[in-house]
């Protein structure tokens, strides 16, 4: 692997307008009969990125991945990998390898044969081939299982074989379809970090398809949130979580409370919204001016709400209600607060004090106030 020499970059590559994208998906649409699986998607992925396509089932993320691998042909638009148009190039001639959701191991071959399968088409000596296979087996720590067949392996081991097999040909681009979907929680976390380690070591570009927002958040350099064949938002995990641009994205990533209202006034990056639901006004920062009366929603993550029993000072963003539900999860507690209007608000409260010591913040039937900092809220326009 060539060394980048410590990466003296000034910022992330995707912010550099002059940077040449490694993968360029240009206006790609895929229709199956009358159903549009992928709808006019345009996307750029740069070298060395670990890019996640995130969305629910049927959102088109897997179809997009299969088009990159060459198993599906776009109905419209084109896909360029490393500057080369992929139209008409069959899967077996693309510089791309894929790790399948079902792992798709060859059941009649040993671990070693599975991993080495792709190398038989490479122009290399038997010794080199054996060396490469050995290196990969070591990389995924399957040394003692080299002669086993897939049915003699556990789920986690199979998944590692699939990964090693996909890496064998040293592809420029590795596609992973729900790589951790079949693993239990402990194993998932462990493999997630392994995957990031491997990506650091081999330095190729990864595109991961997943429906699991946590997986996308921990793994990816950038995430594209997909819904109904359309990319709703692209950004770093932080951007997607902290600055979702639409209600769908805000709802899909984590949970969020939304207070619908109308813009009352707008100045100097701050917008005042009157919220009829709570009969209050809220002030929220926003980067563009919105005309008075436009319909918006003020959205606040549950962990960014503070719960108190005292009425806040005037001018602070606040709502009031009664506690109807209280769930204790150890590190934090989840409160559900019913507002006068009947709407429910979720609040996460970090249990910084040990339970049982001192007084609880609030219990059932308590009347409480929820406050939030203007900078913690997001304004979602229609």
């Amino acid at each position, binding site marked *: 692997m060539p060394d980048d020499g410590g990466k003296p970059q000034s910022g992330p590559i995707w912010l550099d307008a002059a940077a040449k994208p490694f993968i360029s998906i240009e206006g790609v649409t895929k229709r199956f009969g009358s159903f549009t699986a992928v709808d006019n998607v345009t996307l750029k992925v740069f070298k060395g990125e670990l890019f996640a396509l995130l969305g629910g089932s049927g959102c088109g993320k897997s179809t997009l991945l299969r088009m990159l691998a*060459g198993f599906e042909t776009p109905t419209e638009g084109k896909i360029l990998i490393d500057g080369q148009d992929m139209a008409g190039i069959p*899967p*077996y001639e693309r510089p791309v390898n894929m790790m399948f959701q079902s792992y798709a*191991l*060859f*059941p009649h071959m040993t671990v070693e044969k599975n991993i080495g399968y792709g190398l038989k088409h490479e122009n290399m000596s038997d010794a080199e081939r054996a060396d490469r296979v050995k290196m990969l087996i070591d990389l995924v720590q399957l040394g003692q299982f080299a002669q086993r067949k897939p049915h003699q392996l*556990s789920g*986690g*081991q199979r998944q590692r074989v699939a990964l090693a097999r996909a890496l064998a040909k040293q592809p420029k681009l590795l596609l992973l379809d729900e790589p951790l979907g079949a693993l239990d929680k402990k194993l998932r976390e462990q493999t997630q970090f392994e995957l990031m380690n491997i990506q650091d070591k081999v330095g190729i570009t990864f595109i991961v398809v997943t429906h699991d927002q946590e997986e996308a958040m921990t793994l990816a350099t950038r995430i594209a949130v997909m819904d109904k064949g359309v990319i709703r938002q692209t950004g770093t995990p932080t951007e997607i979580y902290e600055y979702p641009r639409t209600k769908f994205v805000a709802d899909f990533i984590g949970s969020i409370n939304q207070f619908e209202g109308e813009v009352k006034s707008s100045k100097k990056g701050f917008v005042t919204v009157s919220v009829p639901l709570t009969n209050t006004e809220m002030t929220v920062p926003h980067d563009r001016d919105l005309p008075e009366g436009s319909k918006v929603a003020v959205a606040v993550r549950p962990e960014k709400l503070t719960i108190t029993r005292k009425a806040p000072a005037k001018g602070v963003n606040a709502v009031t209600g009664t506690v109807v539900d209280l769930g204790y999860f150890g590190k934090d507690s989840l409160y559900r607060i019913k507002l006068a209007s009947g709407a429910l608000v979720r609040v996460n409260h970090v249990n910084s004090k040990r339970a049982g010591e001192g007084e609880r913040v609030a219990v059932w039937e308590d009347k409480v106030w929820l406050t939030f900092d203007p900078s913690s809220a997001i304004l979602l326009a229609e």
Partner: protein
Amino acid sequence: MKRLSTFLVVMLCLGYAFFYIPILSMMFFSFNKSKLATVWGGFSFDPYVRLFKTNAVWDAAGLSLMIAVISATFATILGTMAGMALARFKRFPGRTAFSGLVTSPLIMPEVITGISLALLFIGIGYATGLMRGATTITIAHITFSMSYVAVIVQSRLASMDRSVEEAAMDLGSKPAQVLFDVTLPIIAPALVSGWLLAFTLSLDDVVITTFTNGPGSTTLPLYIFGQARLGVKPEMNALATIIVTLVGTGVAIAGILMHRAEQKRLRDERQAYAANK
């Protein structure tokens, strides 16, 4: 263990009796000294000795085996191709007609297939001088047994995870190579059972063989059938006993081997999970 009720035990015995008494009585009468099959004349190996001296039996058996091996092999190749076409190509012009033609021998009465094949071979005979005999029997057997293979292969392919083939293609193999590297090895058990079924069907076919055979091409079932029409002889009992013994032994060995393979598989799986902890 729970004790079975008397009723269940009686029904079980009746069931076994229904299946096995005919075979056991046939085996018993194969050691009959009398030349009449149904009259007991004392214990003797005479029927076996006479059977081994009858050349016609061994000629017929040899012919039957040859036809069965050749037709099963061709039926497996053609049936696999037909099954793949049906499983993998959901839309092509004439697919419905093709699918109907492939499966028609399964539902068509054998006499009808037999008559139509006989007419075809007579026609071909006029045109080319092809004599009816072992060749026409083999072709006829291929025709109906490939349907069975096609159905077996089609259903196996339908339940096969296609992503395995896609993975092979993704790793650089062209479609033809994927077929030989991945698809055929994975569906090998279906091919073996298809071949065995075709072999068995060919080996005991009477009706279609009757319509398509010619002079000098008597298969074993035709020979036995011909002999039986003259009254069942102890030699035929002896021949049947030999066949039953061979088949029974084969089935028993296969059962033991499969049981062992299953045990090994379970052991391996347990090992894999133990090692993973």
